[in-house]
């Protein structure tokens, strides 16, 4: 008869100018309650000025078992970094 409350992931912006950061999860009946619970659980000492909650089931995550083929292509593209380019020392401000 009784239904379990779904799981929500909580993201907190600690102050304006910084991004929201994942800080944990909690159960709540709905998103409104999740926000209120997140305030009580994760910002009891003014740790945040803004909170996002999202139901955990709505997050699509990359699979760590496929990390190699997923992330490795970036590793050999060293020309994406400024140090790849040979410039004489006389060139300033670059």
């Amino acid at each position, binding site marked *: *008869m*009784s*239904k379990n409350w779904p799981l929500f992931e909580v993201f907190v912006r600690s102050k304006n100018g910084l991004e929201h950061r994942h800080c944990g999860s909690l159960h709540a*009946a709905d998103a409104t309650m999740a926000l209120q619970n997140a305030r*009580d659980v994760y910002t009891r000492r003014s740790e945040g000025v803004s909170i996002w909650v999202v139901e955990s089931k709505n997050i699509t995550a990359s699979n760590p078992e496929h990390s190699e083929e997923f992330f490795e292509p970036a590793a050999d593209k060293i020309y994406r970094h400024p140090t790849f380019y040979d410039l004489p020392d006389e060139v300033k401000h670059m």
Partner: protein
Amino acid sequence: MQDDKIKKLEERFEARIAADEKIEPRDWMPEKYRKTHIRQMSQHAHSEIVGMLPEGNWISRAPSLRRKVALLAKVQDEAGHGLYLYSACETLGISREELFEQLHTGKAKYSSIFNYPTLTWADMGAIGWLVDGAAIINQVPLCSTSYGPYARAMVRVCKEESFHQRQGFEIMMTLANGSPEQKEMAQDALNRWWWPSLMMLGPTDAESVHTAQSMKWKLKRKTNDELRQQFIDQTVPQADLLGLTIPDPELKWNEERGHYDFGPIDWDEFWQVVKGHGPCNKERLGARVKAWEEGQWVRDAAVAYAEKQSNERSLKREETVIQSKAS
């Protein structure tokens, strides 16, 4: 073939931990790592939750508003600690319902210390000072444990614990500097909480079965005996400052070791309490189960309300669609 593959994965896994890399929820991990972490983290979470009961008992009887708001905030923090830890535990694929089930049926353990009664207000002082003090000693090394969600939860927990210990010490100080009766109350609380606090740091190394493996996984960074010694060494001068006497006639500074020597711990008592025969085991678990069961209608009502809100929202959306089609 299969075994070979697992062995390779295990080797790589152990190497990652040795190199101080963190393990995250969806990473491959040995089944034993998962199980051990679920056990330790859930025991830890249960301890935070059950740990609210002996203190919650005194919120309505705090001697001043200052003490009352502090104790209330402390107990609320412990609820928060329980929640951080439950949610970290759930990342390993066990549900909150299963975790509660294990606690409520007595299958899961929680810290033995919470099975002692809180007889006077001074116990709030002794608990904050000694029990939270011992907890801090246990928890600080866990901030760098190998499992990411556990380590992150512990960082938050440790930040919050220091106020708990300070408010406890302040209570003890006020009583110790008060009337002779108040000082005696503080001494009595110290007498009753001292030995259980030492036991709280776990069985001696010789009897601790999980130590070697836990050390490797950084679930433990110091042995129980090392933690206990550290606790004693830092607490004795604090008791001196209070003008209270630690109830151990064998307690003595050992110049050679650079540590305090202390008397034998009654491990029979410890195991009795762990096995469910402490003074308050039944009462604590009973109170916890009662709170959970009596809160059922609130949780059901919240679900019903959430469903109603969501139905009304989709009804409104449909109306808007119909209206815009009509116009």
